[in-house]
């Protein structure tokens, strides 16, 4: 069981990386780019949300899977899980832990409800190999940590990119996109040429 957990965790982290392979992004990344601590906090929040919402989504998915209109209510059900989790955490933190709320409150909405968390829940619902709750947990933890590591990798490359003698048309977003693209191309060596959707 541990080997399987580890295998799914590593696969979700590297081969099916949320940022490089699937290109899920998050709002509010621009202000995080300068600070690795904020990025770690943000990534930690995303992973925590996924770790809690993942098994819950697994359970609810099992209940609604057989329904005829599953295809249509799939999205809103998983979104309601995330919204419920966000609302609960927001209210609890504000009431009982105001200091933690000050630290975390700014990033909480963006970390809880974004392409990464929502997309990861949907992909896990679709994946037939994740038939146990702990497999889903491994997948979501790997996905969240993979996303955080991807952000940190981009941060580490940022200074080198800004010191290149690139022409003015390529400075800023174009160079970042090309770097991310080349890293994603390198990861194809693990996954092969498959569309992840």
């Amino acid at each position, binding site marked *: 069981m541990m080997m399987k957990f580890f295998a799914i965790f590593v696969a979700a982290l590297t081969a099916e990386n949320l940022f490089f392979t699937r290109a899920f992004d998050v709002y509010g990344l621009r202000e995080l780019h300068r600070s690795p601590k904020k990025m770690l906090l943000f990534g930690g929040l995303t992973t925590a949300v996924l770790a809690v919402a993942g098994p819950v989504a697994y359970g609810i998915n099992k209940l609604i899977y057989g329904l005829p209109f599953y295809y249509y209510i799939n999205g809103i059900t998983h979104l309601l899980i995330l919204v419920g989790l966000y609302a609960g955490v927001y209210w609890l933190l504000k009431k009982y832990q105001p200091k933690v709320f000050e630290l975390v409150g700014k990033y909480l909405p963006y970390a809880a409800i974004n392409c990464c968390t929502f997309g990861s829940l949907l992909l896990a619902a679709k994946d037939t190999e994740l038939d146990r709750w702990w497999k889903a947990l491994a997948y979501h933890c790997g996905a969240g940590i993979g996303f955080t590591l991807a952000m940190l990798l981009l941060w580490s490359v940022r200074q080198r990119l800004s010191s*290149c003698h690139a022409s003015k048309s390529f400075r800023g977003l174009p160079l970042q996109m090309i770097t991310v693209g*080349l890293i994603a191309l390198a990861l194809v060596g693990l996954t*092969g040429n498959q569309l992840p959707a």
Partner: protein
Amino acid sequence: MSVNERPFPHIRSEERSPLMMLDTAIALIPPFFMACFYYGVRSLAMGAMTITAAICANWISSLFNGRGIEWWDASPVVTGMIVALMMPASIPFYIPVIAAVFGILVVKFPFGGTGNNLFNPAAAGLAFVSVCFGDQLLSYPVPLEPLPMTVDEGIKLVQGPASMLKMGAIPTISVEQLALGNFAGPMGTTNILVIAACLVYLLVRKNVKWYVPAAYLATVSCFAACIHHENITAGESIVLELVAGSLMFVAVYMLSEPVTLPKRPMAKVLYAVTAGIITMLFRYYGVAIQSAVFALLLTNAFSPLFDYMAERARVLERRAIRENE
């Protein structure tokens, strides 16, 4: 007052010297001779076309970068030679040309030309072409059968030892075949002894630090010794893993590319070890593809991180020494 216009970091060796690129180009000529011996003049024609395409792409990129055409830049020659030598000798000519042009126009041009690229252009071009035309890149002609200029379907194509290892089979290569490079594989990567001799040349000319390929090959050997087929010994496994695919070629020519390699010695060792780990992980868990090239491309992204870590370690070490005094 003279201003240092070199890009950060400023602690670096004379990596933009044309002599360094010329040395690497000279070290790439012997594999071309061996390719011509095994596969005929077609290999030389492929090399010439790829080098010309790389040089033209470099001229175009330097023109659009606003610094005028850099006529005497030798780095695209090295890129073209590496790309050509990593291809099977029977591949259509347009494939290595596309690889070289992609490498220069996507990896060198946006970043600002020679000396500024973050990734290895040859590795990126090979990765692109491996994803586009993967099957054609993994089928090799039989050596010592000269190929005609236009290759049709009558040519016999076989799998290389890397694909066989991936599928769990044990390739049967005798010691003489190993020593002479007389087995199916990419054009310039099967001649291990020739590549080793070229490594000695590059070490003597101080283009390559000895610990970089040593760390890489040591990491790969450790993995090969620990994880291998039941019917072969650890030693045989090490030899097979080093010989299969383009691992030795990448270790000698592509790993120590001066622009993408980190600058501090500790960072270089870390870089080589990481490249070795990622190569073997790709070989065991990845798809059938040139793993060493993809692993190198991924490790290039970690190069600034290793430099940063080595720099921080040095700062902390100095601080500790000062506090102890």
